[in-house]
Each structure stands twice: as C-alpha cells, then as structure tokens.
C-alpha cells in the first residue's frame, strides 16, 4: 500500500484491516505513537491524517492508501511544541505526549484557550491536570509566531537585497 509517511512516499505491505497504530509501530518501526486504550478514548495514538488529528487505533490501514500520515517522528528537528512541552511542564510521564503534541499541532495557530481545550478534549493526560499543556501550547504559539516573523523578516531582507542589486 502506497501512502505518504512523514513527508516521504512509502510502500508498506500489511493487512488492510490492521490498525494504523500497529502498522506504524510494527511495520514502519515508528514507536513514538503510543497505545493507551485501543478504543479511541485516550488519544495517545493520535497522528495526523491529511493534516487532521485522528486516533490511529481506530483507522484500518486500508484507509490510508494515497493519503498523508504524519507522526511525532515527522516533526523534524525540535518543533516549538516539543520545546515548550519540556520547558513548561507539559510532559510528565510522557506516554500521552506524542499524541498530545500531534493534536496540538492540528490546532489553528492562534487558538484561544477555549479552542485549545476543545481541540485537546480527545487526549487524556493523567499526570499534568492539563495546566502545563496549556502553558506549553501558548508558549509554542508565541515562538511559532516569532519564527514566522523571523522568516518574513528574512524574506523581506532578501527581497530588499535583490531589489538593491
């Protein structure tokens, strides 16, 4: 079955009814995606399917043909969310963290606290009481915006330079 996995075209042989969660962990060797309940309640197995957060324990592998799957391993380098989860106490035991970060990555960039709460309502965390997670998302939003601003500023400089030439 051909699909895009973390930005790369891949071809994986696995039964069509196998859970995407198991295909990722066992056939693709990507163990960052976790299983917490196997019934779509806890969100530990959250991945992005065509940019939308889904529970990979509820997705039969057959459904990903030709689509794009992004897992925690696909956040290249250190994503601002990952940094913010570390510095703001967004992660304690860590088992919900990959799914939580993927769900947070699917939020609109300027999500309000209420939008964050609704957006993360499908992801259980038993350690933090969610407060550290909200702080982390907010901080990442801030640094994400700064990063965008930097990119824009850089692009602006380039244009100016080009114009000068």
């Amino acid at each position, binding site marked *: 079955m051909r699909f895009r996995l973390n930005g790369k075209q891949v071809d994986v042989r696995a039964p069509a009814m196998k859970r995407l969660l198991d295909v990722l962990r066992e056939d693709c060797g990507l163990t960052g995606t*976790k299983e*917490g*309940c*196997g*019934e779509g*309640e*806890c969100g*530990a197995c959250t991945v992005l399917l065509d940019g939308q957060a889904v529970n990979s324990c509820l997705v039969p592998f057959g459904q990903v043909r030709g689509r794009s799957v992004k897992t925690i391993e696909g956040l290249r380098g250190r994503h601002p969310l990952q940094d913010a989860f570390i510095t*703001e*106490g967004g*992660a*304690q*035991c*860590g*088992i*919900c963290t990959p799914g939580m970060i993927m769900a947070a990555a699917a939020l609109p960039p300027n999500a309000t606290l209420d939008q*964050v*709460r*609704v957006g*993360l*309502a*499908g*992801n*259980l*965390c*038993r*350690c*933090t*009481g*969610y*407060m*550290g997670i909200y702080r982390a998302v907010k901080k990442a939003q801030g640094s994400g915006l700064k990063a965008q601003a930097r990119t824009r500023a850089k692009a602006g400089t380039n244009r100016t330079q080009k114009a000068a030439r």
Partner: protein
Amino acid sequence: MLHGRTIRSTIPCGRIRSINLTSDPAGFTVVDYRSIPGRNVVALIADDQPCLAERVVRHYAEPILLLAHEDRERLITAEVDVQYEPSEPLLDPLRSPNVFKSIAIHKGDLEAGFARADEIVEGEYRVGHQEHVYIETNGVIAVPGDGAVTVYGSLQCPYYVQKALRVMLGLPAERVRVVQAETGGGFGGKEEYPSIVAAHACLLALKSQRPVKLIYDRAEDMVATTKRHPAIIRTRTGVTREGRLTAIDIDVLLDGGAYMTLSPVVLSRGVIHATGPYRCDNVRVNGRVVMTNTPPNGAFRGFGAPQTQFAAEVHMERIAERLGMDPVRLREMNALRAGDTTATGQVLGRDTSALAVLREAVARTDFKRRRREMRGTRRGLGLALFFHGAGFTGSGEVRLASKASLELTERGARILVASADMGQGSRTVHAQIVAETLGVPYEAVEVARVDTASVPDSGPTVASRTTMIVGGLLERCAAEMRRTLGRLTPREYLKRHGPIVITKQYEAPTTAVFDEDTYTGDAYGTYAWACDVAEVEYDPVTYEIRPVHITAVQEIGRALNPMLAAGQIEGGTAQGVGYALLEEVVMRDGHMANAQLTNYAAPTTMDTPRIDVVIQERPYRHGPFGAKGLGELPFDGVAPAIANAVRHLGFDVRALPLTPERIMNAPPVRKPK
C-alpha cells in the same frame, strides 16, 4: 519474542474443576501453577496471594493459566475452557468476618470529651473504588538466561518485583535482574501489581526459553489490577457551642478485596489521617480492612488518607452547619498548631502550617464574601483543609533502611538509586540536589538507569518519599563526596586516587519514635499542609456539577523545582476532580462492569477546571534543602472541597462520586437550629 496472555477466572468464588486448551496447541507454551519452581505466592506483606490459582479462585479475573505464542492473533483467539464449582461470594465488606488487619488509636478520655460537648454530630461517609488510569497499561518483557531471568517493565518498585520473583522462582537475588523501563504513569498502580505481571512473564519465558512480552490491554488492566480501597467511615464528634472539638470517635472500614496486598499499611495511613488536621484531646479511631471476593485493592496516590480525610472534611462542614457557624472560623479554631499533638500523640514542630494555608486560601479566593454573594445562585464555593505525612508510616523507614549511592565521574557524579521516575521528575530533582550540594553544574550529574544489577535498594518509589527520603540520602552522599574531593576537581581526584562510590543508608531523625502496639508517637517525620478552595456550578436540569476553579494552597517545605512541584499539585488536583465527580467503578457480581475508558470517565480537558497553585514553604529540617513529601498531598483534599461546594448549593452529599444521580437524590442541607 513470544507474546503472553493470562487466562483468568470468570467467577468471583469457587473451585476449579477442569482446565482445557480447546484450540490447536501447536506452538503454544502453557503454564499453570505446577510449573512454578519456587513458592506459588506473590511475596509482599502476607504470602496469601497465589501467583496462579491452584484449585480455588477467590475473585473474578484471578490468574489461572498462562499462554504464550509467537503469533499474537492465534494467542488472542485461543480458547481455554475452565469449568468451576461456584460458591456464594462474599461481596459486602460490612458482612465480612475475615479481617486482614485492625488498628485502634486512643487518645485522652473519649467519654469525658463527649460529656463536655454541647452538640454531638454523627455521620456516615462512603467512597468507592478508583482506577488509576495510568495511560500506559501494565506490561513487562521477560528474557530468560542460563538459570537466570531479566525483566524489563513499567513499574515503580524494582526491588519489590525482584523479591517476589526470588520467592516464586526459588532463585538467588543475583539471578533475578529487574530493569525499570520508561514508565507511563504509576500513581501507586504499579507499586505491587507488576510483581504479578513479571512473575507470569518469567514463568512463560523460563518454560519456552524465549523472551516473552506480556502487555495488558486496557480492559484487562482495569478489570484485573488493583484499585483505591472503597471505604465506609462513621464519625461521631462532640463539639462545644463555640465550636471547640471535645471528642472524635471514628470507625473506618476498608474493603481490601480477596488478598491482603498492602491493605494493612493503607489502613494505617488512613486511620492516622482520619481526624483531619485538627486538635482534639479525646480521640478514638477504630479501623479494619476486610476480605471480600473482589479483585484485591492496593496502593493509589494518597494511600488511605483521601478516603478518611473526605469524611473528616465533609463532617467538619456539617458541624459548622449544625452550629450555624462560619466554616472557616470553625477550622481556624481547631486547626493543629505547632506544639499541638496529633491523634497518635505526635508533637508538631514549627513547620505546622494548617492555619497559614487556610488563611491564604481564604484571602486569595475572597472566600467569605464570594460565598455570601453566591447564595441562591447556581454557583457554590467550598473548602477543605488537609495534611499528609511523608515517607513510610511509623518505623517503616527504619525497617526499610534504604540506601543511595553516588559515584564520582570525570565531569561530576553519577546517581545510583532505585527510585523510578514515572513522570514526577525524580531524576531531575535528585540531580539538582546532588549538583547543588557537590557544587558542580546540573549537567555534570548523571542518573543511572534503574536496574537491580547496578543500583542499591533505595526502597520503593511510593509514599511521597522520593525527594524527602531518597533525596536526603543523596544530599548526604554529595556532602561527603565534596569533603572527600577537597580542592580537587573530579578529574584530578580520579587521576590521583581512583574511583569512589559513596553510599548512605537511612538513619532515623532521633525524635521519630513510633510504637506500633499502642499506635502512639511520631507517625511521620513531618507533614505537608494544604487547603483547597473549589468553585462549582450546577445545572438545575441535568443535575451535573461542573467544576469551575480550584485554588490549591500547599505548604511543602521547599519546592526544589517549582515547575515540577506545580505539576504534581495540578495533576493530583485533576485526579481528585475525577474522584469527586466522575470516576465510578461499577462492581457487578464482584467484577468491574465498566472496564473501559468509554464508560469509566477520567477527566478530560473539558472536565478539568482552572487550577491555581500557591506554594508555601516552611522548611523541614531533616529534608533535603527543607523539602517535604509532595506527591500525594494534592489529591487528598479535592473531593471534600468539591463536596463542600456542593453542600453550599444545598445538597446534603456524603458519598462519592458526585454524579447527577447522587445530586438529584440528595436531601437538602438542613438549616441550623
């Protein structure tokens, strides 16, 4: 690698007539009690629990047979036919004649105390099971060696597992190696149960001579593993018209389930905390934990104290209601102060902060004014004052005699302890303690993997003891290492004198004497103190209670890492919100009927209110840099604070969780005479 599976009883009580694997047995490794080379027990306090049932089952989901197979699908679909002769199960703890442990605390003269009272307030309070819902279920991998075995697992107490395996396998310690894998949450749920998972995986691994992976799915984890003890608490209190407590008489009954596990120690902590943080000269607490034909209950954050302090704080609220008195004033009048004695006669030190946390919580939330303003609205405001003793109860720490070691490295030092980091951040805090004491940068301190082959037994990772007790041992190790180094850098010292490892063992602060026969003396080295204020809103149509805001003021000696400390308080508070409002284990015929996250509701983002944390610091002189234990305290007071906010709305609630059904059926709070 083989996958393992546990075949469990489907009745709560009876005899096993026959066991038959009805599927094609090709490729299966099958283990029953006859394959156990040592003793068929899960060694803990009493060796009463079999590793695998022999002829009798005493609870639903009791392990009977173990299977392993290379092909997971074949393993899951394999059928085993177990025939039973069922017998009548004992499910009601009030009718159980089998007492695992009873404890009595006596202080002063109870009759004289009641004689001096103007009012006597009585009540019964009930709490049910609570499931841990660590997001990572129980699981281990066992790897067989030459007459030895290595276990990698999600666990809190590597040396508990090692001891259980030694007894069950009949092997010496050096042939049983236990390694803690990164652990996805514990909360007490991985204190004693991993010994069973590890034992089963080892039996399969030794029989097949192949590595075996035994991971529970969520349903199995919920139906079979330990839970918080249900409790029935009856309280009778004498009080003067002005609000002084003259006598407290408490009866605590815990449902232990089918085997003893850690129940006696849970009961011990429960009865010691049963009065709440209040002064009273005349106290009697009678506690007992009894056997029922239900899956054994065990450790869970708070360890008996949340049950009894729920009763204590709702009861205090009822006393205030009866006297027509301000609940804050009643608590101020009776709160324990430095120099007061607890129910066990422990004289409290200068780090006694009941009044300080109460006043801060009341001031910060503008409690009295806002409570008046909310009267007649759909909002309610309530508070709970509570405390938690850190470390093992009584002489437990002396008996444990934990050790911690510190090894000098080229850059600094390497910590060798058996403390399992399961999210609380113990590795970080231990490294901070060592770096600060040794005078090296934090980055120069490493923490060794928790592996019984290389770290000493620093005791279990439980009882809010990892910073206060184990951190204290590391502080002593680092102080001695600093003296040993003198002016030399670690690199220079190693070059001149060679490697050093410094080990320290627990020594009781001289003041801590506890008599376990009379239950008198210093029950804990010290206590941490807290006051929670809960604001709730109720829906008059659905009777749902929505928590709006919780303010948690907690005095913890010293917050060595304020971010991690706040994380413990926020997380413990959220678990308490679940206990108060949502989490109900439905027991039907001795088994959990709602063993799924679909219908056992742990709090999501939408169920968890805003939590404001206020940390107060009054250093404990025997804790590292003044730190007290913190992990469990935040859980203890949330449910009574929420229940008291619901009482403020006019509902006389005395049992948890506060589901819409309970609220709808609650009688109104009676107005004072």
